[in-house]
């Protein structure tokens, strides 16, 4: 093979903590990036993948100590002078971040930000040339109407469009290496696919090597040529993408691949014939903004029977979370009715509503936000029991222990505070709290999407176990079809505030009726490189 463009050689990064200790973030990481190659660094949170990438551009915080070597061609980058680095940053190596809106300055137009970049690196360019180049760059990343978009502000763009602009900025100086740190994690699957398409096309046309940091095995299977698997700051293994998926060498890679949820749509015995616990009938939700109203949910209907999980699937802004909020009275319902266990959840008195809410459990997405930082795990779990069942003392303690047992957390942890727990553990506490009052209905709003895959797998397993034991009805809001496939009995698909398809899981996932559902299913990358490459070829050909 030819010479690598970028070489990371025995990189080590330690962080000095405020009390004088050292925390090892990265140890002995070596990798090569070749021309026009997509190298994916895969790992869970805390594996050191982002730190490794940041050290390439010298973007580590001042308390970091590095060892080893990072070379771009023949140039040493690690601990290089600021003047050397500023010649490299944006010019020869550029970076795309996860959140496009965080990376763009909201008070300047995208054209201005592109021109500023060009002015910095090519001072000889004339004003007219810069203007022309900015439009051309936007055209390269497939932004529709580039000559008009050049004068729009970041907030006028969608997430996908903003990420295209960020990529255009990264490519402004024809860099040799593009570092993409979770470039599609904040985006919906259909948008993710478009962005990945752009990246793939640019690799061919512009000839850039891509170092892609991701946690998503589907994305890896889709675009990577070679894969570096990291854990605890070390490289577990490096392999070509096909051989990695076919025969992983490291034990950890095997576990990781096993934990990835896959969409199989295999039949499972379920189906209950009892009367539905939740009946949502043609509800519409409208938010009043200063000058106009926004319809978040438009005449949506669905039912959930006892012991059954109905998944509500859709992309961001489709109104799926709003339905969940409307059921617990946190969203303004303009029209239609919601019945929970025979009680009207829209038009009852405040007292009756509070009584009703005792019978609905809720699990939120963000495991850090859903627990009061000032309450211990035991207090948080026991609070609903203390308030509504008036349990006190040993009776309360016994019940809390029972709940912690059911979510497989040690009893002694009742004394701990949320910040001392990992994301998955916090989510277990949220589940324990949500089921503490024996709810008839549980609303789970993306309960696992903020978690790492291996943690997600254990939490989902636990969730299913608890659900089967307690037999509550569950409305499971999610954007991830593979997760939905593992858990749900029925699936409802939402798009622009409307439920466009509602049926048995196997029917919806195997034989989708609506065009949007089909698009959604196609866009989700399959964690299998052989199959996914076929998908990609078919998709590109169709374009």
């Amino acid at each position, binding site marked *: 093979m030819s010479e690598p463009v970028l070489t990371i050689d025995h990189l080590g990064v330690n962080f000095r903590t405020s009390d004088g200790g050292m925390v090892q973030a990265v140890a002995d990481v070596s990798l090569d990036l070749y021309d026009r190659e997509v190298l994916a660094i895969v790992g869970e949170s805390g594996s050191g993948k982002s730190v490794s990438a940041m050290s390439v551009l010298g973007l580590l915080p001042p308390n970091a100590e590095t060892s080893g070597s990072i070379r771009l061609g023949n140039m040493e980058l690690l601990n290089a002078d600021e003047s050397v680095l500023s010649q490299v940053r944006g010019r020869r190596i550029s970076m795309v971040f996860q959140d496009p809106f965080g990376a763009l300055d909201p008070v300047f137009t995208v054209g201005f930000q592109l021109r500023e970049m060009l002015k910095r690196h090519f001072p000889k360019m004339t004003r007219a040339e810069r203007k022309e180049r900015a439009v051309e760059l936007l055209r390269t990343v497939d932004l529709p109407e580039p000559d008009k978009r050049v004068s729009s502000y970041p907030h006028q763009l969608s997430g996908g469009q903003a990420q295209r602009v960020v990529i255009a900025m990264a490519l402004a100086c024809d860099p040799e290496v593009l570092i993409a740190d979770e470039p599609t994690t904040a985006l919906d699957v259909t948008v993710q696919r478009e962005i990945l398409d752009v990246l793939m096309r640019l690799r061919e046309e512009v000839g850039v090597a891509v170092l892609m940091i991701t946690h998503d095995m589907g994305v890896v299977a889709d675009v990577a040529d070679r894969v570096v698997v990291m854990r605890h700051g070390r490289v577990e293994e490096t392999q070509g993408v096909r051989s990695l998926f076919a025969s992983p060498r490291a034990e950890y890679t095997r576990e990781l691949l096993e934990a990835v949820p896959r969409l199989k749509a295999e039949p499972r015995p379920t189906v209950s014939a009892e009367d539905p616990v939740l009946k949502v009938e043609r509800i519409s939700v409208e938010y009043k903004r200063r000058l106009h109203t926004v319809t978040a949910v438009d005449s949506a209907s669905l039912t959930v029977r006892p012991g059954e999980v109905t998944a509500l699937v859709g992309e961001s802004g489709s109104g799926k979370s709003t339905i969940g909020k409307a059921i617990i009275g946190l969203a303004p319902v303009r029209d239609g009715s919601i019945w929970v266990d025979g009680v009207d959840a829209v038009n009852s008195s405040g007292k009756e509503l509070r009584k009703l809410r005792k019978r609905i459990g*809720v699990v939120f997405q963000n495991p850090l936000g859903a627990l009061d930082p*000032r309450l211990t795990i035991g207090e948080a779990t026991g609070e609903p029991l203390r308030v509504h069942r008036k349990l006190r003392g040993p009776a309360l303690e016994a019940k809390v222990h029972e709940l912690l047992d059911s979510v497989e957390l*040690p009893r*002694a*942890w009742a004394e701990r505070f949320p910040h*001392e727990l990992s994301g998955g553990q916090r989510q277990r506490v949220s589940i324990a709290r949500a089921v503490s009052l024996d709810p008839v209905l549980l609303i789970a709003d993306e309960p696992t999407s903020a978690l790492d895959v291996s943690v997600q797998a254990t939490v989902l397993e636990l969730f299913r176990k608890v659900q089967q034991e307690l037999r509550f009805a569950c409305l499971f809001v999610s954007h991830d079809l593979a997760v939905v496939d593992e858990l749900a009995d029925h699936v409802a698909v939402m798009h622009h505030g409307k439920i466009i398809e509602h049926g048995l899981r196997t029917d919806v996932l195997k034989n989708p009726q609506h065009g949007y559902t089909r698009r959604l299913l196609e866009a989700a990358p399959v964690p299998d490189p052989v199959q996914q490459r076929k998908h990609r070829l078919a998709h590109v050909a169709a374009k």
Partner: protein
Amino acid sequence: MTEQLAAKEISTTVSRRGVWTTVRRRPQFWISLAALILLLLIAAVPGQIAGFFGESDPRVCPLVESNQPPSAGHPFGTDIQGCDVMANVLHGTRTSLFIGLATTSVCLVVAVTLGTIAGYFGGLADRIIARLADVILGFPFLLGAIVVLNSVPERTPLILSLVLAFFAWPTLARLVRSSVRSVKEREFVQAAHAVGFSHARIILGHVLPNSLAPALAVATTMVGGVIVAEATLTFLGVGLTQPSISWGLQLSVAQGYFQTAIHTLIFPSILLTATVLSLIALGDALRDALDPKGRS
């Protein structure tokens, strides 16, 4: 999987760290507490304490001893009238501490109540409270205070505190309002709504404890500001009337003799600084201890 294994390893080392055990180990807490107790003691029995060091009566002012630097009989020296500075400073503690603490507490109560209502419920209540705060903030403090204080029959420390509090609460209320608003949006508050808790329980149990920290931090620094504001009013002749004794009064008189009798300025300043510093330090120590993250 790995996660549960980790859980079992750590679970044996769990120890209870309450507020008291944490705060007990911090020297900052004990030093500031001791300083404040000393100040309160001085406020309670200023005469006796001054008597240990020399002149106990602040109103014994032999003119022959005018403007003496610190000496054996007068450890803090004497002022332009010949009065003992130490006796004056110690006697002033009661009024000044009272005005500082009373004003701040009244402010805090008003600001927390109104700020929470505005931030939590929003809508009309928010608009009314916010406009009210704007009006008071927009009103010139000195002008307003002069008008109000000139129209009351007697200018006692209590009246003065109330007037100061009236003009100081809006800043604090805005602070409370904004932090309540941000806490209100957090998921654990929505989770509390979702289990059917009442508004009162949610506000007192979840929203307030998580949004008070910035307001308390500002309130501790406010005490010093209030004591000085009293001095300004007194200097303009609308604050406490002679023969009242307060640090503010002493500071405003001493300004005029800054070059000839600097000790009359320094000693009240030291006590004022000590009060404010120990309040800030105590507030800091308590805030850290009340925050579970500061307890590990």
